[in-house]
């Protein structure tokens, strides 16, 4: 069976995402296109606030699929990633069985086996996001957010799913996928992911956008902004990102800043406006000092 591809070429990916308000460049579109053709998960890394999670959300929207999201955190384990047995229900089932026995029936020798087969059936299985994604009947997109937060052992749990699209359940056997959904994993790079995981994924590094693309994003997300102010905003952001700061302003911070300027009724950037709203863009005191100096300080001799 040849799966029906939902994207016919690279350009169609870009158009589909643009239609739901995500402006992506060719590299991003190519990776998404390949992910569908090769049926491989995408590992997205990059600085915070460059639209990694947004990419998965927009992809789901563009494919009119349901987004299943697994937010990772330290201590996340199998029972929250794949599946868990509903033991309350199992206990209840056993209870009912015992009551029937008390009511007079002779306990049968192979009664236990029957109950065991009974309580470890799909009826008593609680599916967690990853299992749910591969067993869903409707189209879904699976987002595994901030995979770098889980321990390396939990990461290993995902390997089987991501390469074979199946889950092995000890009592039940192997559960195969009803569909192979697009999978997006995001990482903020707080630790190196394992080689095994990286090998199985397509890799996408989402960097800060080019000045031009960022201007488009600002204009599309903050429609009330004037072209000129949008231009000024991205130019200042460009300078800030070229500095050696602890934390560079992200796209979401650019948008916040643009919205703030609109709310404050600022039509053109000047020293006062920039300086008083800098704290929206930069979150460290040293960074703000540095930026003030580089942006507003008096022209020193040009750097060679």
């Amino acid at each position, binding site marked *: 069976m040849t799966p029906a591809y939902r994207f016919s070429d690279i350009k169609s990916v870009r158009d589909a995402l643009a239609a739901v308000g995500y402006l992506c460049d060719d590299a991003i579109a190519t990776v998404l296109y390949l992910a569908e053709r090769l049926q*491989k998960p995408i590992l997205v890394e990059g600085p915070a606030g460059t639209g990694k999670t947004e990419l998965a959300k927009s992809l789901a929207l563009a494919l009119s699929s349901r987004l299943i999201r697994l937010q990772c955190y330290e201590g996340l384990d199998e029972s929250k990633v794949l599946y868990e047995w509903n033991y309350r229900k199992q206990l209840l089932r056993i209870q009912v069985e015992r009551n029937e026995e008390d009511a007079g029936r002779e306990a049968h020798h192979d009664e236990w086996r029957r109950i065991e087969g009974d309580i470890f059936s799909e009826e008593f299985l609680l599916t967690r996001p990853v299992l749910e994604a591969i067993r869903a009947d409707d189209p879904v997109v699976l987002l595994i957010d901030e995979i770098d937060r889980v321990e390396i052992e939990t990461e290993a749990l995902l390997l089987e799913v991501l390469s074979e699209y199946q889950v092995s359940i000890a009592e039940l056997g192997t559960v195969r996928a009803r569909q192979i959904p697009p999978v997006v994993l995001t990482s903020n790079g707080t630790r190196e992911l394992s080689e095994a995981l990286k090998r199985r994924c397509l890799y996408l590094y989402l960097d800060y956008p080019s000045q031009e693309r960022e201007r488009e994003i600002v204009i599309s997300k903050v429609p009330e902004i004037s072209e000129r102010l949008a231009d000024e905003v991205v130019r200042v952001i460009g300078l800030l990102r070229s500095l050696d700061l602890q934390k560079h302003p992200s796209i979401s911070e650019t948008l916040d800043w643009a919205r703030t300027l609109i709310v404050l009724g600022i039509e053109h950037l000047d020293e006062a406006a920039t300086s008083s709203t800098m704290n929206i863009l930069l979150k460290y005191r040293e960074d703000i000092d540095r930026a003030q100096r580089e942006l507003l300080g008096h022209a020193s001799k040009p750097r060679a």
Partner: protein
Amino acid sequence: MLDVLSGFVDELRASGLPVSVTETIDAADALSVIPLDDVAAVRACLSTTLVKSADHEVAFGRVFDLFFSRRGLPGIPSAEILIETESPDVEEIFVPGRLSGNRRAIDPRELRERARRALASGDEELLTQTAQQAVELYGSVESARPVGVAYYLQKTLRALDVESILSQLLADARSGTEPGERIGGDAMHDNLVRSELMRHADALREEIRREIARLLVDERGAGAVARSMRRPLVEDLDFMHASADDLVAMRRAIYPLARILASRLAHRRRHRRRGPLDIRATIRRSLSSGGVPLEPRFRRPHPSRPEIFVLADVSGSVSAFARFTVHLVYAIAEQFSNVRCAVFIDGVDEVTGIFRRAASIEEAIAEVGAKADVVDAHGHSNYGSAFRLFAQRYGPSLTKKTNLIILGDARGNYHSGESEILQSLRRRAHRVFWLNPEPRSYWGTGDSIIGEYAPHCDGVFECRTLRQLKDFVDRLA
């Protein structure tokens, strides 16, 4: 195409990138579903399947340019030609094509004007064109010279005189003759324009470098050029021999590195062992299993954080290394209960206060260079006298929780080593480590007295690259 791919992968591996066989197969699969005449798509396709770390992106780009990008050959997957430049007939078809296509004489004045516009606007296409023409005009390959991109790059940049164009543009921006909207007052406008010009100039330099590399590929073949351009990855660069550009790249690598280290150290400390039983949480948990405490819960352990005292040799030969190490230690300072730092040449001075006061680590390091009183008599490292002074002044403050980290090449300029002082320091401290930025094979040669000190340390490590430094810090906490 498969031959091209495997040649490409070989070169990536030679540059230090880990590329597995499955990834190569993925790349081949991926190439089969995209249009091969679209260089950008081919690039995205190879990068996403073969390169799994942002740090390797630069090295990938360099190799990709050599193997795949070709100007003026639309519609032809150029790599297939490029890789086989050894076979003479291909070369014949290929090289003249390039020459005849660009034979038109270029007027230097016109080129200068074009460069001016490219730098002012930062327009990618214009930058690329400028780079092509500049290389065409000034960077003609001399067949007798060994393959070396840097040489031609310098030659072209000098001839084009980018510096004077930049200063003129800046002057124009100041006086307001340059069209375009002004932002804010003079200072802000000036700063913005200057920053943009600098970035455009960097882009132009990069374009010219790529263009020269392509030209050299035509002459010598991709393999030869790639070999000559092979550069170690940032984490494998040697502290002692790094160029100015390398140092910048390494400094940029420190923050992400520190973040990874810090989160790993914090995580490991929390998980190393279990704390005492948490009765309340255990009982709460037991409610869901009918009151039977199936899963015991434990409190999180709070082991004490180690204390660090860094003693760094800042004499000329090893100062770059000391700067990096101190930088890294301070970037993860929250992971330690206390970080102190002293620097020495032949005198010793504590510089902890400078770090606490300064706004950024860079500033602090600059201030240390200017203020620390580290020269006692001669201005050459004297480990013996430095240790003696250190023991006198700071010895009493070392405790059983202190990790003393000594940074230096142990080249004592034939002064007496006085290793018994180090021995006494070790008795006071928890552990003593020595990080030596020299290759292990040089240890003990000439005036190196690392052998004399080694028995009095808990560990002596060769530490020439960021990777080795990272491994050490990882071991420490």
